[in-house]
């Protein structure tokens, strides 16, 4: 009798605390993500975005990141970009357009099953530098390329 009662209490406890713990675990990352979105995709100068993204970590220029992007873009609404890298252990790739109202275009978290190779299409408001920052196991590396835009992509 006591045996079953004890096991019943045990079960009751585990079942009641489990959903609580999992729901807490679920809610926390979601609100963190929402805050992250709001801070990094905020309008403002490039420096602020970089500060939010990478705090005060040192960013080294690297020749091992290749950016393939037209140097003169006729239409800023669609600028194809291809980023590839020979750096080992690439974890995230961030693409920023320096003079866009929201500088951060996209940030990719890549798993080791993928090659550090990304193609995308950007919008560019005006002639500006496109900056690619990769986060690797040994620090941050960046590469940049100036793109001239003859027709802007944001606003008519």
């Amino acid at each position, binding site marked *: 009798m006591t045996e079953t009662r004890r096991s019943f209490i045990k079960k009751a406890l585990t079942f009641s605390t489990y959903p609580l713990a999992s729901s807490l675990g679920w809610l926390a990352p979601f609100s963190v993500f929402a805050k992250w979105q709001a801070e990094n995709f905020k309008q403002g100068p490039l420096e602020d975005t970089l500060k939010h993204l990478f705090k005060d970590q040192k960013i080294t220029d690297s020749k091992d990141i290749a950016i393939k992007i037209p140097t003169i873009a006729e239409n800023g609404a669609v600028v194809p970009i291809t980023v590839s890298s020979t750096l080992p252990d690439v974890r995230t790739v961030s693409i920023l357009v320096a003079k866009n109202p929201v500088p951060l275009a996209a940030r990719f978290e890549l798993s080791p099953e993928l090659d550090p190779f990304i193609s995308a299409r950007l*919008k*560019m408001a005006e002639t500006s530098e496109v900056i690619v920052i990769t986060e690797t196991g040994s620090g941050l590396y960046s590469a940049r390329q100036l793109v001239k835009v003859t027709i802007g992509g944001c606003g008519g």
Partner: protein
Amino acid sequence: MSSIKIRAKRIDDKTQIRMLITHPMETGRNKDPKTNQLIPAHHIQELTLSHNGKVIVNCQMGASISKDPYFAFMLKGGEPGDKIKIEWLDNLANKDSEEHVLK
């Protein structure tokens, strides 16, 4: 019809996965020429790509990605029959997903 088109191509021992998503990607700064009112922001915020159920790319993006976004990734390996799943979520909480089986 799904808003996502997926194409996969085998290149040597790698698989190139390309996707085209139909989405307006409004920045919130464009004006409607007829009414002269601002068009509210409407863009994809999150994109995830999974390979046989395991998330391999997690992408956060803003409105600086062009209308009808196109992305391409390079997967090491990839066997025929492997499942590639792509999901997106936008700022108005719309979402869509599409699955593709490698040939």
